[in-house]
């Protein structure tokens, strides 16, 4: 058993006696009660459980909770609030980028990382960035549109 100290969405959590085999996805949901992170396939195919670890998007089902010790985490709960959505979330709403919502937390966290790391000049770039996230409702069109729009707003802000 190991102790895990982790900062999630700016808040520090110290959890003792964490079983080494506990996946980080389960740690977030079951130990910290942060159920915004969804668990889909549990083998790194669907991308629903994606969170930011020290600023990088990571599949939380492909990481052990003990490996998060000392890390800075952002989950979907850390992006915005229902009253005040962040830019990407508001564009998902604007463009109807979700239906059932199961994949959405992963889409948002991946989108945040893409927006920071890549120019996303074309829709092909956006689709390539989203290639690790599965959605069975939308057909992806509106998710791509939402990210395209957020990317444009990001560019406007800079210039």
């Amino acid at each position, binding site marked *: 058993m190991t102790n895990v100290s982790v900062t999630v969405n700016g808040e520090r959590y110290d959890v003792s006696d964490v*079983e*080494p085999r506990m996946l980080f996805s389960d740690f977030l949901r079951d130990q910290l009660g942060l159920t915004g992170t969804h668990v889909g396939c549990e*083998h*790194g195919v669907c991308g629903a459980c994606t969170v930011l670890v020290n600023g990088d998007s*990571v599949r939380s*089902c492909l*990481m052990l909770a003990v*490996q998060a010790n000392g890390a800075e985490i952002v989950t979907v709960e850390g992006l915005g609030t229902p009253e005040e959505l962040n830019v990407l979330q508001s564009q998902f709403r604007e463009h109807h980028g979700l239906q059932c919502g199961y994949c959405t937390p992963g889409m948002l966290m991946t989108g945040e990382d893409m927006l920071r790391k890549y120019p996303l000049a074309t829709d092909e770039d956006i689709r390539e*960035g989203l*290639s690790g996230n599965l959605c069975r409702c939308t057909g992806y069109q509106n998710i791509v549109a939402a990210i395209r729009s957020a990317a444009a707003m990001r560019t406007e802000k800079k210039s």
Partner: protein
Amino acid sequence: MKPAKFDYVSPTTLEAAIEALVASNGEGKLLAGGQSLLPLLNFRMTRPAVLVDLNGIKGLSYIEERGGSIAIGALTRHRDLEHSPLVASKLPVMSAAMRHVAHLAIRNRGTIGGSLSHADPAAELPMLSMFYDARISIQGPEGRRTIAAEEFFVDALTNCLEPEDIVVEIEFPVLVHHGWAFEEVARRFGDFALASIAVSVRRGATGLEDARIAVMGVADTPLRLREAEEELVAMALDDESPKRFSEIVVSKISPNDDLHASGEYRKHLLAQLSKRALQTALAATGRMA
């Protein structure tokens, strides 16, 4: 699913990691990026008694120029290779291939040492290590040794590592070439390749002086096609070269049928990719047929 129980150790030196492996009596597994190991653990396809986490060992993540080579530490993440200006300028074929390595979140975590140790026959870095004649440094209980990439891969998901060995560095000699190409087809962008080829050519006084060809997804290991390299160098360059080249490449492989594609389909893909790759490589030399 969830992993079966295991003990977890997080050593801070290579020596301590090797000691932990020795103490595990063959029941230990190394954890680097975990992007192949965690799915295997979650499915309980592997049930190690001890997981030895390498991420606490400092000094294993670097990309540096050393003489005529680029030395890469085993814990270097795919993301770092993808965005490295040094890799882009000195190992352009690797740089181009990196965006095909899985998906963004996996590139953020996965490591080059882990990819080589896992030895998937359709993964980019094992193939690139053969393409570049990389030398793989391995540390074990007896000390350090270096193995050529071509000797390293034995079979699908099988390499010559002993249970107590750790890949610590991979050295890629910089290749002098005038044109190159990397082509890949996968079912979904970032998935494992159904077929892929890397080609580079060096121009001589007449025709080509040197060529490199590596392929993957079409055998139990990535392949370096040395015979095809010689045949390409000997070939007269004209409009028909890409087509003849694709026939040569395909004549060197005999992929099996599997769940993802038939052997015939993989051959068909590789033929098309070979044509395209040689066209691109020759165009860059200014000798486009």
